[in-house]
């Protein structure tokens, strides 16, 4: 229509010039349109390639190289690696509730926030001289770190890692205790144990800047780690200095701490402990809890109704991790040095060892996939992570990792106490 109008008012020479110009302009527009279309398509293709969820991702700690490897557990392959995380001996990881960020707690007091999707270190602070573990609060806004030096718990903003609160584990004037077994608990609380003091502390963080701490004294000698049951009700500290465990019912804290499994090693010789056992919420399978016996080649079984010992399973060595498959049908156990080349599988119904595997020297950790069909096993001295089918106990895949220790799946983001 516009072209018609032009035709009426201009000479034929001019007309020709105009037509050429219009053609030229149209061509430019067409080229630009094509380019935009191409760009859009490229972006679309790129997005289709990079847009992914993070619910099937996991982090493997490569402890001597100060790095974490990011892997995916759908196809069981490596995704990337993030380094520069410091001393990662005894490192552990918790996840942001959106499962995008991993908070890595290092031995050197480093707290690192790693983006699983871009595989970048977002932020890192050195928050103490010597850290041991951490937890994320019920609402996902606070990250707490437990420290050996200076003994206590420091709390940070989960987004910025800015300091929020500092809970010194001062159990006597001027005396700070090393802190172990830090977990999150319902009611925006953190619960932890004091190795030197033999105490359990419960910190209410509803006012983040002003933690309200409740102390439970005389829980037993040298608590070495703690766990909270998957329902968030019971906190259990394992004792290194004596046979037994300390149980706190968080529904009824006024009832105080109760001793369970008292004197489980009575009359038996306690063996030297070359590796401290660990406790995690995975210990509960159905109505039973499975825990390591310290200094004995045994897994102890408790009834979770009354917390009495209902079984004692002889195993290959001193247990380090005793982990229930998510459906509670099996418990997998690894062992302390020098018997750390073996993993055993316990049937939770018959309380018998049904399988003994030899993944290689230095089996340090095991992590089940969220629904339990596979378990990932880190084999330090072989520089391998082995993935087993849990039904058949057959090896499915092997991934290479440099001196792997802890394996942490992002599904932990939605579990109390992990």
């Amino acid at each position, binding site marked *: 229509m516009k072209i018609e109008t032009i035709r009426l008012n201009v000479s034929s020479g001019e007309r020709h010039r105009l037509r050429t110009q219009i053609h030229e302009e149209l061509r430019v527009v067409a080229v630009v349109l094509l380019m935009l279309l191409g760009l859009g398509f490229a972006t679309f293709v790129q997005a289709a390639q990079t847009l992914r969820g993070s619910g099937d991702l996991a982090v493997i700690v490569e*402890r*001597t190289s100060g790095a974490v490897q990011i892997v995916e557990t759908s196809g069981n392959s490596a995704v990337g690696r993030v380094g520069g995380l410091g*001393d*990662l*001996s*005894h490192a552990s990881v918790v996840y942001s509730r959106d499962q995008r960020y991993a908070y890595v707690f290092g*031995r*050197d007091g480093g707290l690192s926030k790693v983006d699983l999707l871009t595989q970048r270190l977002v932020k890192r602070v050195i928050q103490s001289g*010597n850290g*041991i573990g951490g937890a994320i609060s019920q609402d996902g806004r606070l990250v707490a770190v437990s420290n*050996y*030096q200076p003994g206590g718990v420091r709390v940070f903003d989960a987004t910025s890692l800015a300091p929020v609160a500092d809970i010194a584990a001062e159990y006597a004037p001027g005396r700070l205790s*090393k802190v172990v077994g830090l977990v999150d608990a319902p009611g925006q609380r953190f619960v932890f144990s004091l*190795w030197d003091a033999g105490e359990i502390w419960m910190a209410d963080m509803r006012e983040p800047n002003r933690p309200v701490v409740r102390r439970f004294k005389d829980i037993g000698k*040298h608590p*070495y780690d703690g766990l909270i049951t998957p329902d968030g009700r019971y906190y259990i500290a394992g004792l*290194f200095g004596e046979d037994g465990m300390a149980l706190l019912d968080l529904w009824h804290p006024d009832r105080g701490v109760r001793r369970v499994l008292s004197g489980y090693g009575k009359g038996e010789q306690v063996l*030297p*402990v*070359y*590796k*401290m056992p660990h406790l995690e919420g995975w210990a509960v399978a159905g109505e039973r809890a499975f825990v390591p016996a310290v200094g004995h080649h045994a897994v102890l079984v408790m009834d979770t109704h009354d917390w009495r010992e209902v079984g004692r399973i002889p195993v290959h060595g001193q247990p380090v991790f005793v982990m229930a498959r998510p459906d509670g049908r099996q418990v997998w156990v690894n062992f302390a*040095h*020098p018997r750390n080349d073996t993993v055993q599988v316990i049937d939770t119904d018959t309380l018998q060892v049904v399988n003994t595997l030899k993944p290689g020297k*230095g089996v340090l950790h095991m992590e089940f996939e969220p629904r339990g069909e596979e378990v990932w096993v880190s084999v*330090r*001295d072989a520089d391998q992570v082995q993935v087993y089918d849990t039904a058949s106990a057959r090896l499915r895949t092997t991934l290479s990792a440099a*001196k792997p220790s802890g394996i942490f799946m992002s599904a932990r983001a939605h579990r109390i106490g992990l």
Partner: protein
Amino acid sequence: MRHLIALCGLSLWSLIGQAGPLEAAREAELDNLLIQDCGSCHGSRLSGGLGPALLPDRLEGKSRAMLAQVIRDGRAGTAMPPWGPLLSDADIAWMVNRLLAGKE
């Protein structure tokens, strides 16, 4: 009989092996043990953890004999286990030297 001789030879060889300086392979094993297993309590950089730091400046003034004894027998009332059942005297002597010298 032949087996017996072979066995005697083998034990003699292992005896000599124990008394003399360590093989390179054993040194590598011990180094790995130090970093990984001692490191699980003392930190893989030996800067401390549940157990104290084992860096040269922290060990200054402590005798070799005392350090060797702690490694061999452990420390009662602490989490330090006796390593005597797993390590020979030569192993322990090497370990003490390695600790006093710090990282190469």
